[in-house]
C-alpha cells in the first residue's frame, strides 16, 4: 500500500471544516484514489476545535494515519495543536493576514484566505473554500475534478459558482507563490468510480435494501444520521420514519410494526439503549423481529458525546430481564455495515427475535471509498410465514411449540386467524398463564431457537497464518487499524496474524479456542477500559488473552498498535 497523502483540516465549529474535508475526500475519490477520512469534533455548534482527516492512497485503506502532509489551519489553535504532527516536508496552510505570529514554524505557508474570499468570491464565508483551493494547489491536483465536485456539493447556481471562484483563487495563489520543497503531488489515476460513504450511510442502505419499512428513533450521536437518511428516502422507498418522543417509545413502536408484519428498526447509542432494555425483553418474549442499531460512544451516562468507544459490549450482550435469545452483529468495515444490516433483518425474521447491530462513533461517522455493493446478492429471508390461506385457520397459535423453537408467523389482519401475544408469560395461543409447566415449556421453546441461530453465525476472519507467534484480536471498528498494524509488524519481520470478530452472538467459541491454542500469545485490542471482549472470550472459551486498551475517546491508529505490541516485548 502506498499512502500518498494525508490532509488535515482544522478549525472551529462553524468555520466549514467538514465541508472542506468532505469535498477534498470526494475530489480525490473521483480521481480513482482510495480514501479513509475521519472527523474529530466537540459537542457544540460554534467554536471549539474540530478537525477532519483525509488519507489518500492508491490501494485500499481502512484506518487513519498520523503524519500530516498538508495541514489546513482555519484558525491559530489548529496550528498550535497539530504542528507537531506535520511531516518533514509537510505544509501548514493558514491565513497570514489573520494569524500573524507564527514566525519560526518553517512548514507554515501563508495565504490571504479571507481577503481572497472577499475579493474573488464576494463573501468571507467562503474563506474555507479558498483554503480548500490552496490545498489542491499544493498537491497540484487537477482542478476540473474538484470543480465538478464543488458544483455538485453546492447544488449549482450562484453559490456553486462563487465557491468555485474561491477555490480557484486559493489554488492559483499557491501555484504562483509557493516555492518550498513539498513533494506529495497527486493527479487522477483512474476513472474507476467508488462510493464514498460512512458507516451510518452503509447501514441505512442495508436497511433499505433489506426492505425495512418502519423506523422509529430518537436523535442521539452517533446514529442520528441514520434517522436523517431514512427520513430523506422514506417517501421514495415506501417507508415510514417516526421521530419518537423517547427511546422507550422508539423500540416499542418498532416492535409494534414488526408484530404487524413489516421489517422494522430503531437506532440509538448507549444511553438510549438503556431506555430500550425493557423493550428488548418484550421483543424476546413476544418473539417479535426487530433490528436495533447501537452506535457506541464513550460512557458512562453522557460520556463524551462526539467521540468513540467500544464500551457497551457486555451491556448489549446481557441487557435483559430473564433469559431470551438475541443475535449481536458488529460490523468493522463499510461493507460489513451494509451486509450485516441485511443479515440482521433476515435473522430477526427467521428466528423471530431482536437483533443488534453494534457500531461506534468512529465507524459510524468515518468516510471511506468502497466498490458498489452487488445488490443482486441481497437475499430476503422472511422465515416461517403462514400463507394467506393458513391465516384463516381459527386454531392458529402464534406461539406454537416446535422442535426448532420457531412458530409459524401470521400477521394481525392477514386472515381470520387471531394473532395473540403477551409480555406476560403465555401459552401457545398467546394468552397469559401462571402455571409452572407452561412457563418452562415456553422458555425452553424460545431458547431452542439458539441452536439454529448459532449455525448462522459466520466464524471470525483470520488474517495471516494460524501458526503465529502473536495473534491480534479485534472486533468492530478497530479492524482497519489492526490489519494495518499486522502488515507493518510482519514487514518488520515479526510473526503476527490477526483475528477479527464481526458476528458476536451467539458466540463462535469453537473457532476461536483453536486459534488461541495455536498462537504463542494473543492480545485483544479494543477501545474500552476493562477489556470487555477479552473477558467475553475467556467466559466463552476458558482462554486468557492479553489486552491493549484505549479509552480516551479517540480511535486507534495502526502505529499506536505497533508500538504497544513492541512494548510487550519479544
Amino acid at each position, binding site marked *: 500500500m502506498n499512502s500518498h497523502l494525508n490532509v488535515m483540516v482544522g478549525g472551529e465549529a462553524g468555520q466549514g471544516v467538514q465541508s472542506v474535508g468532505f469535498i477534498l475526500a470526494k475530489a480525490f475519490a473521483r480521481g480513482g484514489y482510495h480514501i479513509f477520512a475521519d472527523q474529530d469534533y466537540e459537542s457544540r455548534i460554534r467554536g471549539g476545535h474540530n478537525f477532519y482527516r483525509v488519507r489518500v492512497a492508491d490501494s485500499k485503506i481502512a484506518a487513519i494515519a498520523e503524519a500530516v502532509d498538508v495541514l489546513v489551519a482555519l484558525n491559530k489553535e489548529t496550528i498550535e495543536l497539530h504542528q507537531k504532527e506535520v511531516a518533514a516536508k509537510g505544509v501548514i496552510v493558514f491565513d497570514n493576514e489573520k494569524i500573524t505570529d507564527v514566525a519560526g514554524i518553517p512548514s507554515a505557508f501563508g495565504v490571504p484566505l479571507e481577503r481572497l474570499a472577499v475579493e474573488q468570491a464576494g463573501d468571507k464565508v467562503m474563506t474555507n473554500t479558498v483554503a480548500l483551493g490552496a490545498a489542491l494547489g499544493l498537491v497540484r491536483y487537477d482542478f476540473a475534478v474538484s470543480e465538478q465536485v464543488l458544483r455538485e456539493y453546492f447544488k449549482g447556481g450562484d453559490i456553486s459558482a462563487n465557491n468555485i471562484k474561491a477555490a480557484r483563487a486559493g489554488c492559483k495563489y499557491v501555484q504562483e507563490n509557493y516555492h518550498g520543497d513539498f513533494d506529495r503531488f497527486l493527479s487522477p489515476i483512474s476513472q474507476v468510480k467508488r462510493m464514498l460513504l460512512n458507516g451510518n450511510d452503509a447501514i441505512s442502505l442495508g436497511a433499505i435494501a433489506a426492505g425495512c419499512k418502519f423506523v422509529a428513533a430518537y436523535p442521539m450521536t452517533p446514529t442520528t444520521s441514520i434517522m436523517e437518511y431514512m427520513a430523506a428516502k422514506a417517501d421514495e422507498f415506501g417507508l415510514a420514519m417516526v421521530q419518537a418522543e423517547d427511546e422507550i417509545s422508539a423500540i*416499542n413502536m418498532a416492535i409494534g410494526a414488526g*408484530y404487524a408484519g413489516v421489517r422494522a428498526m430503531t437506532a440509538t447509542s448507549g444511553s438510549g439503549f438503556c431506555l430500550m432494555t425493557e423493550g428488548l425483553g418484550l421483543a424476546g418474549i413476544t418473539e417479535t423481529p426487530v433490528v436495533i442499531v447501537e452506535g457506541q460512544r464513550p460512557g458512562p451516562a453522557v460520556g463524551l458525546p462526539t467521540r468513540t468507544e467500544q464500551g457497551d459490549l457486555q451491556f448489549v450482550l446481557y441487557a435483559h430481564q430473564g433469559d431470551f435469545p438475541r443475535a449481536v452483529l458488529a460490523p468493522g468495515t463499510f461493507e460489513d455495515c451494509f451486509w450485516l444490516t441485511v443479515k440482521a433483518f433476515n435473522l430477526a425474521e427467521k428466528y423471530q427475535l431482536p437483533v443488534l447491530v453494534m457500531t461506534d462513533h468512529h465507524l459510524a461517522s468515518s468516510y471511506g471509498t468502497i466498490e*458498489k455493493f452487488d*445488490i443482486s446478492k441481497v437475499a*430476503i429471508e422472511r422465515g416461517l410465514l403462514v400463507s394467506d390461506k393458513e391465516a384463516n385457520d381459527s386454531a392458529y397459535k402464534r406461539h406454537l411449540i416446535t422442535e426448532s423453537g420457531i412458530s409459524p408467523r401470521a400477521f*394481525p389482519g392477514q386472515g381470520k386467524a387471531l394473532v395473540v*401475544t*403477551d409480555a406476560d408469560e403465555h401459552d401457545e395461543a398467546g394468552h397469559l398463564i401462571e402455571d409452572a409447566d407452561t412457563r418452562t415449556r415456553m422458555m425452553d421453546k424460545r431458547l431452542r431457537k439458539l441452536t439454529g441461530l448459532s449455525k448462522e453465525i459466520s466464524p471470525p476472519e483470520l488474517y495471516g497464518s494460524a501458526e503465529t507467534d502473536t495473534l491480534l484480536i479485534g472486533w468492530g471498528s478497530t479492524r482497519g487499524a489492526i490489519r494495518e498494524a499486522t502488515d507493518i509488524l510482519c514487514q518488520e519481520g515479526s510473526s503476527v496474524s490477526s483475528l477479527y470478530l464481526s458476528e458476536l452472538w451467539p458466540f463462535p467459541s469453537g473457532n476461536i479456542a483453536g486459534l488461541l491454542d495455536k498462537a504463542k500469545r494473543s492480545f485483544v485490542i479494543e477501545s474500552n477500559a476493562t477489556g470487555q471482549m477479552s473477558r467475553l472470550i475467556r467466559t466463552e472459551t476458558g482462554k486468557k488473552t492479553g489486552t491493549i486498551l484505549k479509552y480516551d475517546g479517540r480511535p486507534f491508529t495502526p502505529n499506536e498498535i505497533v508500538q504497544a505490541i513492541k512494548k510487550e516485548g519479544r
Partner: protein
Amino acid sequence: MATIADYAGIPIAWCPGCGNFGILNSVKRALVELGMEPHQILLVSGIGQAGKLPHYTKGNVFNSLHGRPLSPAIGAKIANPELKVIAISGDGDAYGEGGNHFLHTMRRNHDITYLVHDNQVYALTKGQASPTSDAGFVTKTTPYGAAPPVNPIALAIVSGATLVSRGYAGDIEHLAGLIKTSISHKGFSLLDILQPCVSFNHKNTYNWYRERVYKLENEAGYDPTNKALALAKAEEWGERIPTGVIYRQDRLTYDEQIPALKMGPLVKQKIDPGLAAKLLDELL
C-alpha cells in the same frame, strides 16, 4: 355478523363486582353493534388489571409492557392502517408510567382509540395511589395522602387529542355508545372510564360515582367543539362529574400525512432490494 358470543375470551380473573366487567361488556357490545369481526381489530394493552381485558374478549392481541401500549399500537397502525387499533390501559399505565407517550400520541393524532380504565388506584399491585387518586387518598405508599391528581381530560384537550370523552363503567348502555363513537372517530380518541375497584378504592365507589355523574348530551347548549367550554367541563370534578363527549376537533391524522401509506398498507408492499441500486449511484 359477529355476535356477543363470538367475543367470548378466556376465563376472567378479576374480582367479582369489579367495574372492569361493565367495561368489558360495553366493549363487546360496541364491537358487535359496529358490525366488526374480531380479526379486523387489534387490541393493544399495557400491564395492570385493565391490561388483561384483551384476553377476556376476541381480537388480535398485543399485550405489551406497563405504560407502553400506545407505542406498539402506533407502530402496528402505521404498518397496517386497515386494522382498527384500540389501546387499553389503567390510570397508572396511561398517565403515570406512560405519561410521555400519552402526550405525544395526542399531539401527533395517531388514529387510535384509547380506553383508560380509571379506578384512581394501582389495583394489580394491590392498592397504591395512582396519578388520578383524589388528593389526600391514603394508601400504604402515601401514608400522608396522595398529591393532587393529574387531569387527563384537560391534558387531552390541550395536547391535541381530537376526541375526548369520559364514561362510567356502571352505565353500560351509555359507555357502549361512547366506545362506538370513539372507535368510529378518525384520529386519536381518549375515553377515560370511571371504574370502581371494589377491592382497593373504598372512596370512589359505585355509589360515589352514581351520585355525581351526569351526561353532557342532556345539557342544553353544550358544544364539544368549543374548546373553552370543554376546558371548563374538564375542570369539573367533585359534586358533579360530566360524562359523554367533552371535546372534539377535526385534524389530519398522523397516518394521513405519511406519503408511503398512499401506496397502501406497508405490510402489503413487496420487498425489492433492486430498487436500492440508485442510492448507490448517488454516492459515487
